[in-house]
């Protein structure tokens, strides 16, 4: 983005000078670097100017990502990135708007916004840093923590079941649904690129390691597998639903990674675009409306 980028290495210039304060071993590093590479590659391959990317962050460890990349950013408030993202996309259709959100951030505080953005097929990308625990507030359960999870606010263990966010998204109208894992970085980068290029609402749930409060590395390494070509029909709701239900974030089961669903539907922002196009003299329009009231 800055004109001083080293030639041939656009991604290198995307790391900002802000001091990185994530814990060693944190899954956020993978997400940061794969998003950085995804943006750089899309810029080269698709000719999207770097200044046309906008990142949003909520509140939680995930949000720091927007400080760490030299990209336009809106570091907002807990759970509220999604409506701001829709506003940004409404104002400028050329922008690629990417929300980085946490699982507590978006599934607890901001679930209503997520559901409605999916329902209206807002042309934005939502990347969930789903570590299934609150990190920044030091270890409480989130909406995707498994049954029995003992957090600092629930020392006896929770009795409720986690949400399956992919199923929620499918049910509410998301047109692109994927899941990645922070230890499978090449796939993660491809999932990001695919989601950003999808026209409409894209959702990527990233199983992210929290090295300090909930380290599921061994569990994921054992259970996660990458979907093979043809294993799910991404244009078919029923096929996607079946694959999404293979693992419910609770019981032991194989965990499929990849794109589950991807369809085209009318984009929410589209129909508003014509209204404000050009540079209308609105004061003349006000006078006209008043004239008609005489």
């Amino acid at each position, binding site marked *: *983005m*800055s*004109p001083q980028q080293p030639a041939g290495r656009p991604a290198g210039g995307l790391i*900002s*000078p*802000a001091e990185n304060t994530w814990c060693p071993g944190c899954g956020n590093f993978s997400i940061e670097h794969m998003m950085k590479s995804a943006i750089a590659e899309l810029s080269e391959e698709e000719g999207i*100017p770097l*200044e*046309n990317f*906008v990142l949003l962050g909520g*509140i939680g460890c995930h949000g*720091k990502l*927007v*400080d760490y990349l*030299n*990209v*336009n*950013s*809106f*570091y*907002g*408030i807990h759970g*509220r990135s999604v*409506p*701001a*993202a*829709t*506003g*940004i*996309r*409404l*104002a*400028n259709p*050329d*922008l690629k708007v990417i929300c980085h959100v946490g699982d507590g951030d978006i599934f607890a505080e901001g679930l*209503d*916004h997520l559901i*409605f953005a999916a329902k209206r097929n807002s042309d934005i990308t939502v990347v969930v840093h789903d570590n299934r625990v609150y990190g920044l507030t030091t270890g409480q359960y989130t909406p995707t923590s498994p049954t029995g999870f003992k957090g600092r606010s629930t020392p006896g263990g929770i009795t409720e079941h986690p949400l399956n966010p992919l199923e929620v998204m499918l049910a509410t109208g998301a047109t692109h649904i994927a899941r990645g894992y922070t230890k499978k970085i090449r796939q993660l980068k491809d999932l990001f690129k695919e989601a950003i290029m999808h026209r409409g609402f894209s959702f990527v749930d990233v199983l992210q390691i929290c090295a300090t409060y909930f380290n599921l590395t061994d569990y994921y390494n054992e259970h996660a597998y990458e979907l093979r070509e043809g294993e799910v029909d991404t244009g078919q709701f029923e096929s996607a639903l079946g694959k999404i239900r293979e693992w419910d974030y609770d019981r032991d089961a194989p965990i499929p990674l990849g794109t589950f669903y991807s369809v085209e539907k009318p984009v929410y922002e589209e129909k*508003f675009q014509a*209204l*404000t196009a*050009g540079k*209308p003299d*609105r*004061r003349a*329009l*006000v006078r*006209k*409306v*008043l004239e008609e*009231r*005489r």
Partner: protein
Amino acid sequence: MTEYSVLIGGKAGEGINTAGLSIAGLFSRLGYRTYMYFDYPSLIRGGHNFAIIRASERTIGAHRTQVDVLLAFDQNSIDNHRQRVHDATTVVYDASQVMRAEGYGLPLDRIVEEEKAPPITGNSAMLGALTRVAGIGREVLEDVIRGSVPAKHLEANLRVAGRGYDAAGDVFTVEPLERPSLPVLTGNEVTGLGLVHGGLESYVAYPMTPTSNLLHFLAGHAEDLAIKVLHPENEISVILMALGLAYAGEKAAVGTAGGGFCLMTEGLSLAGMSEIPVTIVMGQRPGPSTGMPTYTSQTDLHFVLNAGQGEFPRLVVAPGDLAETYAWSATALMLSWRYQVPAIILTDKTLAEGAYSFDVGAIIEPPDPEPVLWDGTGEYRRYARTEDGVSPLAFPGREGAVVKVSSYAHDEIGFTTEAVEGVTALQEKMFRKGESLKAELSTYPTVRSYGPRDAGKTIICWGSEKSACIEAAERFGAQVVQPLVLAPFPARQWKEAMIGAGKVACVENNATGQLARLLRQQGFDPGRPVLKHDGRPFAVDELEARLLEVFA
């Protein structure tokens, strides 16, 4: 002074509001200035709705208790308003519904059946009867109906109106005034037009009385005004969407009432910290909580002055009539962008849903402060520290700029910081901006005075109570002083306006005297409180009686 008051009452769903506006239109055609108070409970069908339409040779913005004509669709409209009837009041009633009344009984059921017209056309029969009672020509009646009824239903309405006209008798004569008629608009409509004058490109709102009609008005005119109108899932989304729009360069406003504003407060605080401009139309109604949703109050002044965690500058304006509503809605939006602060336009149900003659010519066109934009040189810093505290704006998509906004304490680029020097400088920059806004406002009419300055009697008021106060003041030879801007408080202009104020009455639609409290905080004496907190605005005569207690 020649003036007339008409009350029309019936059940919700009978079109009382529309009928009231037609009555206002009738008087407007004859050159009169009109005001309509619309009173309705929070329900869809049934209950008792009424509108009081007052017409005068002069500009008015308040009703009187007594009426010259009472148009009753049901018995409640007779029984609930006995105190409004005087010796010369003419009553016209629907003889199919009303059992006990004296006056002209119109058999509306039979009339609409004979004319093969839908029941809602009964309003036109009432309008016809009023036209006759008021000695207004039939052609004026037909002109008003042509102007308000869709072509499909025009003929039926004209026939039914004629039946009403024929059924009543001549009682008095409203003389036409030789001057152009003015359109009748609501405060909500004029707020919307003022915002567009100020540069509005997108309006975002979740429905809530009393500003829902602002949403409906702008949505209905989105194409005419070349604006986007959005209705998302709740008020939290509303303000965040507006902030997203503004971050990306589009001027946005939102509208709500107290309950919705509660949900917006975290977004308001975000606007303060991130320095993203947003304009909020806040229509007051009685709380606490759901309160009386369709009634009026001035109970949220301190709420909007203090809402949001942390300390940040904001602009709060409270217009009191349509001309002020137009000018200050435009100004609020423009200053919000010039100084990158949240702006709040504080209205209430009385102003927002009341209808008034709108004299566009009386508007003093406000100045056009422009946003400060980045000139493209050097590295872009969203929060660059400048002398007046305002950092030049660039928007995402601008080549050569990385635009970073943040809810965290941040450095000049926008990166999070908690360092002593950084956070201190950030706060100082933010408050320099507030001081610059205050300095610019000193050139605006932030405090207005009406009536004689040397009377030794002063009525203080704010917002929609202004018109009732100006009229009531005449009876006492008092002056009226009204603050238009409530934050940053225009202390110097206030002090000047109050020199020689004498005996002071502070008129407000609340129980605790909220403007009085603000004045005391600023070191001024607010005088004696004259308060009303039943959800209804003061009638002029009611206010006169209350002021007698202070000025006697």
